[in-house]
C-alpha cells in the first residue's frame, strides 16, 4: 500500500475553452481502491479518461510506475477500463468478448480457454461462454465487461460509473462483488462515481472533486467525519451547515448558543462554519406546557446539559419515516435543522436539542465570495 503507482502531475484540461481540470495533482498507490467522487461536470470522468489514454491533458504529466505515459496510446497502457454502459462487443459471444484482449496479444487458445473459465468463475457467471451480450441482464453484462478487462491482468482497473445503470438492489450486490474482486486480484482499482454511498462503502481512499479541483482526499471516515469544507460536507451525506463564531479554542457559538467542541487553532472570535450531521443531534421532548424554569422543564434541560453545556430549544415541524430512522425537521433559533433519530417525535413536539462536543465539525469560512458562490451553485 505504499508505492506510488500512478502520479498525476499538474494536469489541466479544457474543452472548448471550458476548464475541466485545473492543475490537478494526485497520486495513487499500489493495491489501493481509490474513488473519484463528485457531481457531474466535476472532472472525475475526464481524469479517468486521461488515465486510460482516451484524452490528452493540455498540461501536466501522467507517471505510471516511474515512466511518463502521457503520450502513450490506450492500447499500449498496462491498465484496462470498465466502461459506464458496458461497451461489450455485441457481435461476439461472451467467450469471444473476454478473449478479445488475449487474442490481440496472440496468447495460445489453451491459455485463453483457461482464462475465460477463470474469469467467468470470478464474476460468478460460469457456463455463460456461448451467450450473446444482448441476452444478458445489465448486471450480467457489467460482470462480463469486468471479466473482459481483468483477464489481461492489468495493474490497474479503471471503472467509470460501472454500476450507474443498475437498480438499487443489484448495485448493492455488485458493490460487495467489486470489493471481493479487488481483494482476490490484488490490483489497483480507480473508481469514478457520483454516488457518495457507493464511494463510502467500497473505497480505501476517496477523492472528492468539484469544478475541476480536488476538494478533499482521505479515507471514507475522514471524508465523512471531518469534511474540510462546506461542499464536501454537503455532498457526503446530509448535514446541517450553519455559520458560527469560534469564541476560543473548544468553544463555539452557533445561532446565539455556546457549545463545547473539540476543535482548536481557529483563533479568537473567528467566523466559522459548523457541520452537524443529522444523526448526531439528540432530541429531548419537553412535557406539554412545560414553562422555562418549571421543575418539569429543568428535569429535561439538566439531562440535555449533561451532553454539552448548551442546547437549542425548538419545535418539530416535519416527520418522515425512513425505515431505519425517522427524519425530522426541527425549527430552532431561526434555522431548520435536519435530524435523524430512531425515536419518533410527533410534529408539534417541543424539544431541546443537543449534541456531543466531538460531533461538531468546525470549518474555516470560504475566503472569497467567489468560492462561496461556486459551492452554493453546486448544491
Amino acid at each position, binding site marked *: 500500500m505504499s508505492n506510488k503507482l500512478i502520479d498525476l502531475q499538474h494536469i489541466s484540461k479544457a474543452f472548448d475553452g471550458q476548464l475541466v481540470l485545473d492543475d490537478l495533482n494526485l497520486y495513487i498507490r499500489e493495491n489501493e481502491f481509490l474513488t473519484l467522487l463528485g457531481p457531474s461536470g466535476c472532472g472525475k470522468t475526464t481524469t479517468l479518461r486521461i488515465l486510460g489514454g*482516451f484524452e490528452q491533458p493540455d498540461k501536466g504529466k501522467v507517471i505510471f510506475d516511474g515512466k511518463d505515459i502521457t503520450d502513450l496510446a490506450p492500447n499500449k497502457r498496462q491498465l484496462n477500463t470498465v466502461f459506464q454502459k458496458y461497451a461489450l462487443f455485441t457481435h461476439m459471444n461472451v467467450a469471444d468478448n473476454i478473449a478479445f484482449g488475449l487474442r490481440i496479444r496472440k496468447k495460445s487458445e489453451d491459455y485463453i480457454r483457461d482464462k475465460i473459465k477463470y474469469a467467468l468463475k470470478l464474476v460468478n457467471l460460469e457456463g455463460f461462454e456461448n451467450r450473446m451480450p444482448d441476452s444478458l441482464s445489465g448486471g450480467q453484462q457489467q460482470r462480463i465487461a469486468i471479466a473482459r478487462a481483468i483477464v489481461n491482468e492489468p495493474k490497474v482497473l479503471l471503472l467509470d460509473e460501472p454500476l450507474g445503470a443498475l437498480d438499487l438492489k443489484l448495485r448493492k450486490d455488485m458493490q460487495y462483488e467489486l470489493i471481493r474482486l479487488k481483494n482476490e486480484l490484488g490490483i489497483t482499482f480507480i473508481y469514478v462515481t457520483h454516488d457518495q454511498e457507493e464511494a463510502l462503502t467500497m473505497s480505501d481512499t476517496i477523492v472528492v472533486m468539484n469544478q475541476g479541483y480536488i476538494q478533499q482526499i482521505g479515507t471514507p471516515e475522514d471524508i465523512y467525519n471531518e469534511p474540510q469544507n462546506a461542499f464536501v460536507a454537503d455532498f457526503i451525506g446530509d448535514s446541517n451547515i450553519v455559520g458560527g463564531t469560534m469564541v476560543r479554542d473548544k468553544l463555539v457559538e452557533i445561532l446565539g448558543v455556546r457549545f463545547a467542541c473539540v476543535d482548536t487553532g481557529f483563533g479568537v472570535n473567528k467566523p466559522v462554519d459548523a457541520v452537524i450531521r443529522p444523526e448526531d443531534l439528540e432530541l429531548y421532548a419537553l412535557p406539554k406546557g412545560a414553562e422555562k424554569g418549571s421543575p418539569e422543564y429543568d428535569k429535561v434541560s439538566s439531562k440535555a446539559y449533561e451532553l454539552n453545556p448548551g442546547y437549542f430549544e425548538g419545535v418539530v415541524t416535519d416527520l418522515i419515516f425512513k425505515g431505519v430512522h425517522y427524519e425530522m425537521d426541527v425549527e430552532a433559533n431561526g434555522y431548520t435543522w435536519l435530524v435523524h433519530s430512531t425515536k419518533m417525535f410527533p410534529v408539534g413536539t417541543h424539544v431541546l436539542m443537543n449534541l456531543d462536543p466531538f460531533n461538531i465539525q468546525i470549518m474555516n469560512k470560504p475566503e472569497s465570495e467567489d468560492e462561496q458562490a461556486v459551492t452554493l451553485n453546486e448544491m
Partner: protein
Amino acid sequence: MKKKHNALLSGPYLVWTAAFIVIPLILIVYYGFTDENHHLTLSNIAKITDPVTLKALFLSLLLSAMATVICLILAYPLAMILARMKNGASAIITTVFIIPMWMNSLLRIFAWQTLLERNGVINQVLSFLHLPPQHLINTPAAIALGMIYDYLPFMLLPLYNALTKLDWNVVNAAYDLGANRRQTFFKVIIPLTMPGIVSGITMVFVPALTTFVISDFLGGSKVLLIGNIIDQQFTQVGNWNAGSGLSLVLMIFILISMAVMQHYESDDEGVSSIL
C-alpha cells in the same frame, strides 16, 4: 372490434399489393413460361444461353459488383468522417452528398455523357492542352463510372446511419484491450456496422445490375447490359415472353446474391426486410 378496425385500415394496402405487385409478378411468370400461342415452354428462360445475352449478363454482374465495391470503399471513410463530426457540420455535408439524389437520374447520366463524349468537355480540355483525345464514352469503364456516381449516395446513407448509431465507447474498449487502429477497424467497427454495409451493398448492387439507362447513355449501343437486352425485347422486338423470361433469370441472380448477403447480416434490419 380492434381487429376489424385494423383489417379496414390495411385494406387499401392489400388492394395495392395485389394490383401492383402480386398480379404483375404472376403475369411476368406467366409470360416467362409461355410462348405467343400461350403454350407452356422453357425457351424464354433458355434464351439466357444466347451468347450475346450471356455476355451481357456477365458484364452486368461484373460492372455492378465493381461499382458496388468501389462505392463501398469510397463511402465508408466518408461516412466515418461524417459520423464523427459535430452535428451541424455533418448535416450540411451529408446534404451536399445527397442533393444529387434529388435530381433526375437521367439528367445526371446525361451530364456524364456530355463530359465523356468524343467531342465532350474532357476531350476538349485535353486537346486544348495538346494531349491526344481519349476514347471514354461507350466503354464498360464509362458505365461503371456512371453507376458509381449515380448510386454513391445510396451507399453513403445506410453507412452513415450505422456509424452514427455505433457506441464510440465500444471502439475505445477495443483500444483499451490492446487493439491497434487497424485491428479495431476490422474486428469491431466493420462487424458492428455490418447491417449498414449490407443495406448499402443491396441498395447499389440491385439497381446497378438491372439498369439500362446508364448503359444506354454511356455505353451507346456498343456495350449492352442485361437490362438493355430485356428492354429491347419489350420495346423493340416486341417479344414480351422472352423479356419476361430473362427478367425471371435476373431475379434469380438477385435472390442468390441477397441470400449470400443475408448470410453476413446479423441484425434484422436491411436485407432480410427486403427479401
